């Protein structure tokens, strides 16, 4: 139902556009490490903006804690934008870090990495999006890839670690 609430397009256009961007960045930046950084930065910028659309259209109510937030990202966020869902596992004892597991990922349809791209985190834009979006709801996080199907793993696994929860500051001075 959540996926029906947004305008959708044929995923090939998205997948191939992303592929063409990665390819162009590899040509322009040369270093794989630089490309990883750039993709993460682009994702961050997107996440910062996308969170608005998410909050406006998803109808989710306020999350009580980080645990609930990650569940919402996995079940509602991924579904709303990419049409797939992720699962959340591997919680640490104090509930500040976990893994998002993605078995199906439209970003990598038709993708195979050549040997020259060892070290490339092809899906780095996704981790950037999550980091950017969470920062807009006052959560500073670190998001990194643990498993990657393009590197031969059986699933995609993102490790999400909550670094700091910034308390919200209301603009109390509004009426001045």
């Amino acid at each position, binding site marked *: 139902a959540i*996926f029906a609430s*947004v*305008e*959708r*397009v*044929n*995923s*090939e*256009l*998205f997948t*191939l*556009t*992303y*592929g*063409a*961007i990665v*390819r*162009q960045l590899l040509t*322009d930046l040369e270093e794989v490490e630089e490309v990883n950084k*750039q993709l993460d*930065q*682009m994702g961050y*910028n*997107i996440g910062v*903006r*996308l969170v608005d*659309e998410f909050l406006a259209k998803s109808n989710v109510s306020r999350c009580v804690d980080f645990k609930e937030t990650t569940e919402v990202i996995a079940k509602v966020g991924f579904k*709303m*934008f*990419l*049409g797939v869902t992720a699962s959340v596992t591997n919680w640490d004892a104090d509930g500040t870090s976990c893994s998002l597991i993605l078995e199906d990922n*439209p970003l990598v*349809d038709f993708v195979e990495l050549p040997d020259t791209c060892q070290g490339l985190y092809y899906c780095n834009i996704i981790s950037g999006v999550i980091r950017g979006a969470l920062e807009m709801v006052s959560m500073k996080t670190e998001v990194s890839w643990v498993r990657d199907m393009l590197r031969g793993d059986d699933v995609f696994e993102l490790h999400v670690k909550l670094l700091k929860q910034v308390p919200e500051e209301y603009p109390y001075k509004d009426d001045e």
Partner: protein
Amino acid sequence: MVREVAESCVESLLTEIVSQYCNGFYANKPDLAARRIEAIGYQVGHQLSERYTMERPRFSDHLEAIKFICKDFWSELFKKQIDNLKTNHRGTFVLQDNKFRWLSRVSVAPSSENTGSIQDPSAMAESKEAQATGMYLYFPCGIIRGALSNLGIPCAVSADISNLPACSFVIRIKA
């Protein structure tokens, strides 16, 4: 079943390509930025037309191929066809989309001097907004050029937004 993603995913990517290439790597070299953005579109168009023509017989002439771009290809991308096709029968085709989707959320200053052909940099320099809008258009221009080139038709593609929200793509086939 056709696999789908949210439209905002594609729009976000497009926004980022334009912003990274225009404000980041090539901040003071708009023509280099434009060429990169066009190249990304070209790659996409090339691959998409390969996929969308898999089950079709070969096009008999240029007009057939252009019609395919106007109808099937455009529908796959934008869920609508090109609204108007004109040609001078000497290798120039003008494809007009009366409400081009990728510009529907771009705001452009209302003054008519601020819009113009993206192949005319002097007109573009007049306004930052027009230049930014022009940058967005290099991507679809690249897509069209890539798609046609995959069909064996080398061409140049430019865009004209002098009557927004309509957008015209001008295809000049190389003899």
